[in-house]
C-alpha cells in the first residue's frame, strides 16, 4: 500500500477535528503539509544519508491501546535518582497520567488539548508546531498532524525546579508493530530553571518506530538542561526532533547520548532569538551491529551577541553508520556572534562508515565562527605507549576510547545520570571503571 495513503487513512480515523478546538487548525495545516511533502527520501538534502521510507511500508498501530504497562515493568526502566525526580511516562506515544509522578511545585503538566483551551492557549497556539518552519520535511508534519495526547509542560516564572524531570518513552511492541508519536511542548518561564532527562525503551520483539517531537520555549534569564539518552533495542528506530527556541536572553545545555537502536535520527534545532543567548550542544554516539545514527543540528543565530558551542563525538563499530550534519546560521543582524562546532569520529571496524557535513552559513561579518571535524582510527602511538607499559591491547583500546568519551560525559551535570551513562559506555567498551 502506498504509505502516504495508509497514513491518510489513519488520520481520518482520528477523532473529528471539531473536538479539538485550537489544535484542530494546527493539525489540519500539518496534515496538508504532509500531503504535499510526503515522507522524506534520500533525494531530500537533509535525508541524504538516512533512509526512513521503509519504516512507512509496514503496518503499524497508530493508536495503540492505552497502557498495558504495569508499574513493575516501569520500575525496570527507571533512571537512578527517580525517588526525588518528577517522572513523565509516555506509553506508545501517549502520556500516561496514572504512571507519571509530579513532585515539584511550580510545574504544571497537562494535556495539550486542555492547554489549548485554558489560560495557556496563547502559548500553545504561538509555539506549537513552530519548528515545522525550520524543518521543512514531512516527518515533522506527520507528528503535528497526529497530535492527540500531547503534553504541555509549564515551568512557572522564577521557579527553580530542583529535581530533574525524567521522561520515559515506553513502546509496547509485544503484540504488534507500533508507531509512537510522543509530542511535548515545554514553556520555561522567566528566570526559571529546569532539567530534563529522556529515555526510550521498547518492550517485546515487534518493531517500533518513534517519531517524537519536543518543543522547548525558553524565556528571559531561564536555564534549561536537556539530556536525551537513547539505549533502546535494535528493532526500535526513531526520529527525535528537539526544537529549542530561546526567546529571551537565556542559557541552554543539551547532551544527546545515542548508544543503540536500529536507526536513530536526532534533529536538534536551537534558535537564538534574543541578544546574549548562550547554547551548548554536546553529543556522543557509540554504535555497533547494523545500527545507524544520524545527528542533525541547527544553530540559528538570529540576534547579535550570542554564543554557541557544539561538540559531537562518535565511535562506530561493526557495520554501523554514523551521520553528522551540523549547521550554523548567522543572520545578517547577528553581529558579534561566536559559534564553534566540532565533530570527531573514530571508526573501530572495517565495515563502519561515517558521513559528516559541518556546515556554516554566515551573513554577518563581525563574527568568529569555526568548525572542524576529524575521522580516523585509534592512534597507533598512544596504543603503543600503553602496551609498552604492560597493558593488554584490549584494555589499552578501551582505556583510550573511554578517554575519548569523557569530554562528553563530563558535560552531564546530573551526577546520578552521568554515572549511569558512564556505566553504559564503559560496559560497551569493556572498560573497567574501577
Amino acid at each position, binding site marked *: 500500500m502506498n504509505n502516504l495513503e495508509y497514513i491518510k487513512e489513519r488520520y481520518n480515523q482520528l477523532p473529528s477535528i471539531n473536538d479539538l478546538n485550537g489544535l484542530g487548525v494546527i493539525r489540519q495545516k500539518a496534515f496538508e503539509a504532509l500531503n504535499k511533502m510526503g515522507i522524506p527520501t534520500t533525494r531530500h538534502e537533509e535525508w541524504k544519508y538516512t533512509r526512513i521510507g521503509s519504516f512507512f511500508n509496514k503496518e503499524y498501530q497508530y493508536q495503540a491501546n492505552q497502557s498495558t504497562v504495569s508499574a513493575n515493568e516501569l520500575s525496570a526502566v527507571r533512571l537512578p535518582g527517580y525517588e526525588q525526580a518528577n517522572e513523565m511516562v509516555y506509553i506508545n506515544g501517549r502520556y500516561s497520567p496514572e504512571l507519571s509522578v509530579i513532585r515539584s511545585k511550580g510545574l504544571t503538566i497537562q494535556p495539550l488539548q486542555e492547554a489549548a483551551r485554558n489560560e495557556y492557549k496563547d502559548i500553545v497556539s504561538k509555539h506549537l508546531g513552530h519548528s515545522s518552519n525550520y524543518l521543512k520535511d514531512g516527518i515533522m508534519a506527520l507528528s503535528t498532524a497526529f497530535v492527540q495526547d500531547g503534553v504541555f509542560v509549564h515551568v512557572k516564572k522564577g521557579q527553580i525546579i530542583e529535581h530533574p524531570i525524567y521522561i520515559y518513552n515506553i513502546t509496547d511492541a509485544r503484540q504488534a508493530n507500533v508507531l509512537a508519536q510522543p509530542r511535548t511542548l515545554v514553556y520555561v518561564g522567566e528566570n526559571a530553571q529546569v532539567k530534563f532527562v529522556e529515555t526510550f525503551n521498547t518492550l517485546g520483539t515487534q518493531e517500533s518506530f518513534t517519531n517524537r517531537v519536543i518543543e522547548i520555549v525558553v524565556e528571559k534569564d531561564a536555564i534549561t538542561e536537556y539530556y536525551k539518552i537513547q539505549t533502546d533495542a535494535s528493532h526500535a528506530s526513531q526520529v527525535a526532533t528537539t526544537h529549542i527556541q530561546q526567546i529571551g536572553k537565556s542559557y541552554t545545555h543539551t547532551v544527546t547520548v545515542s548508544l543503540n537502536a536500529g536507526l536513530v535520527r536526532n534533529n536538534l534545532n536551537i534558535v537564538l532569538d534574543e541578544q546574549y543567548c548562550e547554547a551548548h550542544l554536546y553529543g556522543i554516539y557509540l554504535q555497533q551491529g547494523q545500527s545507524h545514527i544520524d545527528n542533525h543540528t541547527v544553530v540559528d543565530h538570529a540576534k547579535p551577541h550570542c554564543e554557541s558551542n557544539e561538540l559531537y563525538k562518535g565511535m562506530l563499530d561493526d557495520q554501523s553508520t554514523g551521520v553528522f550534519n551540523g549547521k550554523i546560521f548567522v543572520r545578517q543582524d547577528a553581529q558579534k556572534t561566536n559559534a564553534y562546532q566540532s565533530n570527531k569520529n573514530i571508526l573501530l571496524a572495517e565495515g563502519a562508515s561515517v558521513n559528516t557535513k559541518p*556546515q*556554516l552559513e554566515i551573513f554577518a*561579518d563581525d563574527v*568568529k565562527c569555526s568548525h572542524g571535524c576529524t575521522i580516523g582510527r585509534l592512534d597507533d602511538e598512544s596504543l603503543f605507549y600503553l602496551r609498552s607499559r604492560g597493558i593488554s591491547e584490549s584494555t589499552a583500546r578501551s582505556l583510550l576510547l573511554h578517554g575519548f568519551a569523557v569530554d562528553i560525559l563530563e558535560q552531564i551535570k546530573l551526577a546520578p545520570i552521568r554515572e549511569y551513562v558512564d556505566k553504559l559506555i564503559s560496559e560497551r567498551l569493556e572498560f573497567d571503571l574501577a
Partner: protein
Amino acid sequence: MNNELSAIEKTVLSDYKYGFVTEIEADEAPPGLNEDTIRFISAKKNEPEWMLEWRLKAYNHWLKMQEPSWANIKYDAINYQDIKYYSAPKQKKKVNSLDEIDPELRKTFEKLGISLDEQKRLSGVAIDAVIDSVSIGTTFKEQLAELGIIFCSISEAIQEHPELVKKYIGSVVPITDNYFSALNSAVFSDGSFCYIPKGVRCPMELSTYFRINAEGTGQFERTLLIADEGSYVSYLEGCTAPIRDENQLHAAVVELIAMENAEIKYSTVQNWYPGDKDGVGGIYNFVTKRGICQGAHSKISWTQVETGSSITWKYPSVILKGDHSVGEFYSVAVTNNHQQADTGTKMMHLGKNTRSRIVSKGISAGVSNNSYRGLVHVGKNAANARNFSQCDSLLLGDKCGAHTFPYIEVKNNTAVVEHEATTSKIGEDQIFYCNQRGIDTETAVALIINGFAKEVMNQLPMEFAVEAQKLLAISLEGSVG
C-alpha cells in the same frame, strides 16, 4: 621566440584595439539549440561520424535532464534557445570600444594589460588561444612535437588523432554526468587537446587563453589532457570577456588523465567579466573539471584563482583511482558586488594509500555570496587514505555571505580525514598596526588579503602568480573603507 609569442599576445589583446578580420556571416550559427545546430557545428568542423553521434547522444540525454538547483546561487532562468552555439572570431562592430566604455572599467583593463605584458616578457610559455570557442592558434607546436607532445585545438585532434580523442573523451566526465557537461558535450565547438607521451617532462608551461568575444554567444570549450606514464605537465588557463549588459553562459568541460607516475598541474586564473556594480551582466561560469589519477603514484593538482564571473559554479575534482596517488586543490575565490560563487572540489579516494589536500580561501565583499562546497569520499577499499581540508573565509563588509558545505563520507576505518574551517573579518588591530606604520587602509587590506591567500598563490606558476595578485587587488578595489 619572443616575436611569436607577442603575435599571439596581439591576437589575444587585439579585441580591445582592433578586433578580428574574418568572414562574419558564414561562421556563426543562428541562436537556438536543436539537432540541426549540432549537425551544423559538427559539419563546420568537418568531424567524423562518431563524433557527431556522440554529440547527438549527449544532446538527447541533455533534453531529459533538469537544470540543477541545489547550488547556493540565484539567477534568472537561462533560455537555451537564445544562445548562439557557434561563433568564429569576427570583426567587432565597435572598433574603438575601449574608448567608449566606462573609464573605471578601462582602468581595470589597463591594469590587466600590464599583467599580460608581464607574461610577454617571460618566454617559454606555449599558448593555445581560444576565442568564442574557436582555437585561433597554438604556439610552439613544432618544438613540442619534437618531444612527441601533442598540443593543439581539440578540433584538430579529432582530425589528426582520432584514436586518442575517441578513447579518452568523456572517460572522466561522461556525457550523462550533469546538465552542463551534457550540454557541453553536445555543442562544444573547440578547446585544447594535449597529450604528453611516456616519460616526457614537458619543458614549458602549456597555456590556454579563453576569451568570449561575440555578443549573445555561449562559450563551450572542451579541454582534454592526457599525461602518459611518468610524464609531467604544467598547464595554465586564463580567461577574459568583454563588458556586456547581458549574461553570457560559459559551460566548459576539462578532463585530465594521469597515468602511472604522471603528474599534472593545472592552474586557472579565471577573470571573466563579473558584471557591473549593480550586478548587471557578467558571465555565468558553469564548468565541470575533473581529473583521474588512473595509475599508481600519479598526481593531479588543481590551483584556481577565481575573481571573475557573475556566477561561478565549479568543482575541480580528482578521482584517486591509482594506489598512492595524490590529489590537490588550492583555491582562492573572490566575490565582490553582486557576484556569486559556489565552488569547491571533490576528492574521491578509491585506491590504497591515496592522499589529498584541500586549501580553499574565500573572500567576500559587497553584497556577494561565496560558498565552499566540497566532498571528500573514502571508498571501502581506500585503505590508509589521508585527507586534510582547510576552508577559510574572510568577510569584507556586513552585507556579504560566506558559506561552507563540506561533505565527508568515509567508508574505510584506516582513513584519516580532517577538516577545519574558520570565518572572520579583518581584525581592526591588524589594520591599526598597518596604519600606524603609515600604510593606508586600502593598501593594508590588500596586504592582509594577499597574506590570507598566499598559501594558494604560492602554488601558481610564476607567470600567473604576478597576474593573480594584481587581480585580487583589482577585484576588491573600493570594497573597504
